[in-house]
C-alpha cells in the first residue's frame, strides 16, 4: 500500500488533482494544523494525507473504483479534519484550510466525474440526480462547519451546522408545531388564494378591455406593497392568527401570477389563434383549449416563484404580532434570546419545506408542459 502511494509515483489526471497535490505540499510547509495544545494526533494527520493522496490517484483506477476512491478520500479526509478540530476551536492555521481546500477540490472532481456518467438504468439515473446536489450541499455545510469552528466565529453570529443539526433533533415537536402554524395554515391557503386571484385577475383583464387598461396599472401598484407596511395592517384587520399571515401571502403572490399569466396569454401563436377563429370558437373555448395550454410555461414560472415567496411572506409577516407559535415568531424571538442555532434550525426547515414545495410544482410542470421545448430537451 505505502509503496503504491509513495509520493513520487502520484500522478494526477485532472487539474483538481494537480491543485490538490500542490495544496498538500503547502500544508506540509505550513505545518502544524492548529495552534492549540492538543492538536492533531500523528496517526490522524497521516490518515488524512493518505486519504487525500488516494483520491488524487483515483483517476488512474477504472472509473467505477476511481469515483469511489474520490468520494471516500475527499469526504473521509474532511471528516477527520472536522473531528480533529474539537478541542482546538478557533486555532486553525493556514495548513488546516489548505487540506480542507484539497479535499474540496477532490470532491469537485468527484462530482465532475459523476456528472459525466451516463447511467444505463433509471434507478441509477435517479440516484445520480440525488447524489450530485447532495455532495454539493454537503460541502457547503462542511466548509461552513470548518470555518465557524476553525476560526472560532462567535456562536451568536453563526453557529456551526452540527450545532444546528443537534438543535433540530432536540426540538422536533416545537418545529413541527411551527410548521403546522406557518406552512399548513398560512402558506398553503395564501398561496392558493393569491395565485388564484392573480390568475383570475389576469383573465378578467384579458376578457374585458376596460379592466385590462384599468386593472393592470393598479395590479402593478400591488406588486410592491412592502410586507413590513402591509403586515401590521393585516394584523389590524384579520387578527393575530394565521389569517393575517395568509393575507400577506396573498398580496405577495398575487403580482407574479398576474404578470406571468398576462404574458402567457399573449404567447400563443398567430396561426393557432386564427385556427380557433375559423371555428368561431367562443372566448372561453379559445382560452381553455389554446391560450391557457400555451400560457402554461409562464404560469408555472409564477407558481415556482410564488412557492418560495409565499414562505418568505408568511415567515416575515409573523414578525409583526402572532400567537406564540410559528416559524417567524420563533425566529424573531430566538434571535432576541441569542439562540441563533434555533433560528438556523427554523431556516433549515424553511429551506427544506420550500425545496419540497418547489419540487412538487416543478414535477407538475414537467407533467403538464411535456410538449414545451424546454421540457422536451432544449
Amino acid at each position, binding site marked *: 500500500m505505502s509503496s503504491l502511494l509513495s509520493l513520487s509515483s502520484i500522478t494526477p489526471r485532472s487539474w483538481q488533482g494537480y491543485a490538490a497535490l500542490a495544496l498538500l505540499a503547502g500544508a506540509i510547509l505550513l505545518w502544524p494544523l492548529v495552534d492549540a495544545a492538543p492538536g492533531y494526533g500523528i496517526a490522524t494527520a497521516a490518515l488524512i494525507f493518505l486519504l487525500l493522496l488516494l483520491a488524487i490517484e483515483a483517476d488512474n483506477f477504472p472509473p467505477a473504483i476511481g469515483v469511489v476512491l474520490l468520494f471516500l478520500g475527499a469526504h473521509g479526509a474532511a471528516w477527520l479534519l472536522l473531528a480533529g478540530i474539537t478541542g482546538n476551536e478557533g486555532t486553525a492555521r493556514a495548513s488546516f484550510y489548505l487540506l480542507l481546500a484539497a479535499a474540496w477540490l477532490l470532491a469537485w472532481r468527484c*462530482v*465532475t466525474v459523476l*456528472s459525466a456518467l451516463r447511467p444505463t438504468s433509471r434507478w441509477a439515473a435517479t440516484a445520480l440526480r440525488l447524489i*450530485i*446536489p447532495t*455532495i*454539493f*450541499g454537503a460541502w*457547503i455545510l462542511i466548509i461552513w462547519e470548518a470555518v465557524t469552528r476553525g476560526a472560532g466565529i462567535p456562536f451568536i*453570529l*453563526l453557529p456551526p451546522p452540527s450545532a444546528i443539526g443537534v438543535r433540530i433533533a432536540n426540538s422536533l415537536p416545537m418545529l413541527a408545531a411551527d410548521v403546522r402554524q406557518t406552512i399548513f395554515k398560512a402558506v398553503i391557503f395564501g398561496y392558493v388564494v393569491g395565485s388564484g386571484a392573480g390568475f383570475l385577475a389576469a383573465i378578467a383583464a384579458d376578457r374585458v*378591455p*376596460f*379592466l*385590462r*387598461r*384599468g*386593472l393592470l*396599472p*393598479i395590479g*402593478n*401598484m*400591488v*406588486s*410592491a*406593497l*412592502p*410586507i*413590513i*407596511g*402591509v403586515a*401590521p*395592517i393585516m394584523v*389590524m*384587520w384579520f387578527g393575530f392568527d394565521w389569517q393575517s399571515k395568509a393575507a400577506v401571502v396573498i398580496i405577495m403572490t398575487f*403580482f407574479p401570477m398576474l*404578470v406571468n399569466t398576462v*404574458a402567457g396569454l*399573449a*404567447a400563443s401563436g398567430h396561426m393557432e389563434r386564427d385556427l380557433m377563429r375559423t371555428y368561431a370558437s367562443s372566448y372561453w373555448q379559445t382560452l381553455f383549449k389554446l391560450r391557457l395550454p400555451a400560457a402554461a410555461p409562464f404560469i408555472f*414560472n409564477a407558481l415556482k*416563484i410564488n412557492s*418560495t415567496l409565499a*414562505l*418568505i411572506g408568511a415567515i*416575515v409577516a409573523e414578525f409583526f404580532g402572532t400567537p406564540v407559535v410559528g416559524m*417567524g415568531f420563533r*425566529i424573531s424571538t430566538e*434571535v432576541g434570546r441569542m439562540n441563533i442555532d434555533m433560528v438556523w434550525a427554523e*431556516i433549515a426547515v*424553511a*429551506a427544506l419545506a*420550500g*425545496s419540497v414545495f418547489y*419540487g412538487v410544482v416543478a414535477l407538475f410542470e414537467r407533467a403538464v408542459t411535456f410538449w*414545451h*421545448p*424546454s421540457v*422536451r430537451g*432544449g
Partner: protein
Amino acid sequence: MDSFRDKIVPVTSILAGVVVVWYVFAVILNAPFQRDLDRRAGETPGVVEFIGKTMSQPKPTLPAPHQVAVNFFENTFLRKVTSNRSLVYNAWVTLSSTLLGFAFGTALGIVIAVGIVHVATLDRSLMPWIIASQTIPILAVAPMIIVVLAAIGVTGLIPKALISTYLSFFPVAVGMVKGLRSPELTHLDLMHTYNASPSQTFWKLRVPASVPFLFTSMKVAVAASLVGAIVGELPTGAVAGIGAKLLAGAYYSQTIDIWSALVAGSVVAALLVMVVGIAGRIVDRAMGGRPA
C-alpha cells in the same frame, strides 16, 4: 397595447371605485374605536356626525382616502425635496438602492441561468440550493448580513442593495432558465448544422428566444427589488427611505403616515414595473414583434 390616452378613463374609474370601497371600509373599521371614544366621553353623536368622526381620527385603524391624500400631498409637494420628511426624498433613497439591487439581481439571475443551462454539473447541483436560499426568510438574515458587512466596513447603499439583489435574482434566474431553454427544436437544429459555438447559439438564438420570459421576470424582479430595499432599510437604523417612514409610522402608530408611505411605495412600484414593461415593448418592437 393601449395608448396612454386609452388608459386614463379606465384607470380613473377603477381608482374611483377603489376609493369608494376604501371610504366604506374606513367607516366600518374605525367605528368600534370611535364608539369607545364616544362612550368614554359620554357623547351620542348622530349618524352623519359619527361618520364624519370616523374619517377624521388622528390615528385611525384605516385612514380615509382624503386623510392619506392630504398627508401625501403635504409630504410630497409642500416640503423641500431635500428634507428628510419629504416623501420625494425618501422615495429617492429607496429607489436608488432598488435600482442598484435590481441591476445586480438581474445580472446575477442571468449569470446563474446561463450557468444552469450550459453546465450540466450546475444544473444538477446548484438549482436545489438556489431554491433553498430563497426560502430563507430575508428579514431574519438581513440584520446579520448588515452586521457582518458593517464589520468588514461595507455600509451605506451596498448592504441594502444586496438584499434587493437577493430577492430579485431568483425570479430572473427561474424565468431565464425557462426562456433560454425555450427555442424551437428546429431552430436549435439549425444552429447545430452550422456547428455554432455555444456562445453563438446563446447570443443568436437563446437570448432572443428568452426575451418574453426575461421581461416578465424583470417585472417581478423589480417589484421584489423594491421590497428588498424597503426591508433593508430597517436594520440599518431606518434613517431614511420609504421603509424608514413605514417603520416610524408603525412605531408611533401614525397610520396616516404609514398609508401615505405605502402609497408612495406603490406609485414607485407601478412606475418601475411600467418602465420595465415599456422597455420590453420597445425591445419587442425592435425584434420585429408582430402586433397581437
